[in-house]
């Protein structure tokens, strides 16, 4: 089981969502960090969604990056 962090900086979350669904199906632990300026996006249940500058600080984001096996920036 991998720990995966998605950094979402684009409004179109269609493909990231497809990837996340597959990762979840494989048992990966998925977190999405939404960067400022990106609107609301829906993710599958079980995904941890955090918004930078709102409920996620830059320090905490850095920790998340180091804790993750994979980091994907969209």
């Amino acid at each position: 089981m991998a720990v995966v962090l998605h950094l979402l900086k684009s409004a179109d979350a269609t493909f990231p969502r497809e990837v996340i669904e597959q990762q979840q199906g494989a048992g990966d632990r998925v977190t999405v960090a939404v960067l400022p300026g990106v609107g609301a996006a829906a993710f599958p249940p079980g995904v941890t969604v955090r918004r930078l500058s709102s409920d996620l600080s830059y320090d905490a984001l850095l920790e998340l990056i180091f804790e993750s096996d994979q980091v994907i920036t969209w």
Partner: protein
Amino acid sequence: MSGGAGGSGGAGAGPDNPPVVVLISADPRTSHRANEAMRIGLGITAGDNEVCFVLTGPAAHLLDGDTDDLVDGDDIAKFRATVKELGVPFRVEKTAIPDDPDWNAEGHEVIAVTRERIAELVRQGRRFLVF
């Protein structure tokens, strides 16, 4: 189609050597980013890295026969020729492959993939470049 995500030469991709996945969706007809992505991916293959190029949506036009309509068309022709020489295939989203018979006129190795397969490739990657 291979089971792994590997593309470029070297030791071969596998569980111990997962590839760098270069996922390109930028439109080379309107953006410099598609060419830049291919150039960067090519640079990564110069190291001992497996690189898996994946073209989705309008990025499939990186393989257009006529590069005159592409931003950075001359560079695209040059870089993709090098990718071909290295024997690195392009994985292209099935539904994005243009009907134009001139598409991929140079005969690059193309592996048509579904979006589900692309998601798998991402899951198997070690590092990711998304353009």
